[in-house]
């Protein structure tokens, strides 16, 4: 069973496509795929901004996004432009979080939040902060695009999450926690109504003090008090982000390689998107192997065996390697066929493995061609 072909170019050309989110397991080439799509769309005439999370240093350099700056910068070297443009940025999680606090809390409260040790730790190391802030940044870019027309297409690379789903859940999870019963309880003044309602309050409160220590609890309490002004905002923004992700202008692209782990993660993600009625455009399978030489592994090895190692060492090695390549191709084909059989409706495009690393615009352009070409 073969999957339908995923026509990237028609997705990129559709003016109704305003946000593309690339997701998948770590190490499958999400960042490269996002950057290649962004470049291709820009050179086809769209005004694109690409939000990368953690690009390899040299790719970051060629895109002009360094360590600094939490705002999009223009990428030079587009050809042709066809009236399009490309901006790129790298997410700075801490600064994005700071900006949220500054923008939404009264000035005195904002200062208190920014200085709180609990906030300091939360904004740099909470496992969902990066996901949450990527979505926050997406919201900001979207607002700006709507307001001043800077861009008509936003492409988002997602963080190398523990699981590919984290960024979908992070906004809601964070707002649930910050607005949840536990923090409410911490905030409740002793003797308040919550105490009367809850029989477990004392038990819980003394247990928490015992485990976490008084200092930590005081820090959290101070933080929450200062942060309270933002609570409503958090919930509302999480809801907005979710609505934006589910809208007709957003489309998801699941990136994988033809390897078991990556495909398992991809399957999980595809199923989840379909379940949540999120718009899934298709799949990109990176680093797929292929060979034009139609000789089976067995035959290549048999031919190699008949050669004289003294005079044909290179030939023997070439045949041995061809045999290995054929075996890899067989395995990849099997894995991809199984995936398609279980999810026949999901279109996909294959990108063949490249000899070198993707570090400049030319190579990105080539990846773009591979993405768009029917294999």
């Amino acid at each position, binding site marked *: 069973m073969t999957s339908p072909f995923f026509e990237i170019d028609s997705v990129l050309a559709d003016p109704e496509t305003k946000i593309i989110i690339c997701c998948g397991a770590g190490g499958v080439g999400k960042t490269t795929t996002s950057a290649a799509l962004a470049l291709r769309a820009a050179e086809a005439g769209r005004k694109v901004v690409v939000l990368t999370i953690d690009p*390899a240093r040299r790719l970051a350099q060629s895109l002009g996004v360094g360590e600094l700056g939490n705002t999009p910068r223009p990428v030079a070297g587009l050809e042709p432009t066809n009236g399009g443009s490309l901006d790129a940025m790298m997410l700075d999680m801490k600064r994005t979080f700071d900006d949220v606090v500054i923008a939404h809390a009264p000035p005195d409260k904002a200062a208190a939040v920014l200085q709180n040790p609990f906030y300091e730790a939360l904004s740099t190391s909470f496992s969902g902060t990066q996901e949450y802030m990527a979505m926050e940044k997406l919201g900001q870019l979207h607002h700006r695009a709507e307001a001043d027309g800077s861009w008509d297409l936003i492409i988002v690379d997602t963080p190398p999450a523990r699981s590919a789903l984290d960024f979908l859940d992070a906004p809601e999870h964070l707002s649930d926690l910050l607005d949840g019963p536990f923090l409410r309880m911490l905030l409740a003044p002793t003797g308040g109504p919550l105490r009367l309602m809850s029989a477990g309050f004392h038990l819980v409160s003394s247990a928490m003090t015992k485990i976490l220590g008084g200092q930590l609890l005081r820090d959290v309490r101070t933080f929450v008090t200062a942060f309270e002004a933002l609570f409503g905002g958090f919930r509302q923004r999480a809801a907005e982000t979710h609505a934006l992700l589910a809208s007709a202008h957003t489309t998801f692209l699941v990136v994988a390689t033809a390897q078991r782990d990556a495909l398992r993660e991809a399957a999980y993600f595809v199923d989840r998107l379909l379940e949540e009625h999120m718009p899934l455009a298709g799949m990109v399978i990176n680093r797929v192997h292929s060979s034009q030489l139609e000789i089976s592994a067995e035959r290549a090895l048999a031919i190699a065996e008949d050669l004289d190692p003294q005079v044909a060492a290179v030939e023997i090695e070439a045949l041995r390697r061809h045999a290995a390549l054929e075996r890899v191709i067989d395995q990849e084909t099997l894995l991809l066929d199984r995936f398609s059989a279980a999810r026949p409706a999901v279109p996909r495009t294959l990108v063949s493995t490249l000899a070198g690393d993707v570090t400049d615009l030319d190579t990105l352009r080539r990846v773009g061609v591979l993405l768009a070409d029917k294999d």
Partner: protein
Amino acid sequence: MPPRHRLHIVSGKGGTGKTTISGALACALAAGGRRVLVCEVEGRHGVAELFGVDRLIDAEERRICRTPSGGVVYGLAIDAEDAFLEYLDTFFHLRLAARALDRFGAVDFATSIAPGLRDVLLTGKVYEAVRRSDKGRPDAYDAVVLDAPPTGRIAQFLNVHAAVAGLARIGPIRDQADSIMRMLKSTTTAVHLVTLLEDMPVTEAEEAVAALRPTGISVQTVIENKVITTPLDDDQLQRASTGTTMLQVRNLTDRQNRLLTAEFADEAARTLQQRERHLRLTSLGVPLAKVAFDAAGIDEAALFAIAEQLQEQIDLEVSG
């Protein structure tokens, strides 16, 4: 006989084969009839998948493999919430309170939002498994392998000290973090970084070595995975990579020979690139181990074959 490492921590960029190497290392350590535990902490169920067994759930330490030399490998998927509830019970005898805390969302809060606490809980469970042998418990292991988070997060994950420093200056959590940190820095713990001989994974391995240095946790081995082995020398590869000298294989047509020449040019170039990256890693000053690329994919036999390669190259004993 010198003591052996009791804890092996395996990290690497996503997609480098971290879990496969963790599993193979566990098999290598189990040689000679030993009991070894392999733990994962990211909820991916990669270990169960690798060994072809049912998912590891509910904090169960289940036997997942018997090695050819009679060793036994157990698997455990550590979940922060389970670890937290267990922690409350063990250290505070708070089984009842734990349930109340759970109802209030405190467990979710503590494990997902209280920064660093999650990592302390995960490494804390590993600590507990390693320490069993000191207590002479029947469920003790000869060695524990941790399939750790990827290199991008490894320093933060292992530096539990820093994670709780700003938050818990005193108290039980701080004590727990101190004990874990002592174990991680001790000579009986070995950290291994898995990499492919490609630019990004090598860069991440270099960065991880640098990021771990200030924590006092040292990297014992960098494991190069999926290394292409070839009898050809650099000159032969160099010539082949240009694709200008036609290969001449009898039994193949001219067209087939042309295609083979072009295909091998790419392969030769890739092999040369791998050699360059190997040189880059050499300059790290960390011992390197090599796992050969296996085109047949990973099954049980391949896993044992990798275990054998690791056994020959990795120092399983604590060096003086």
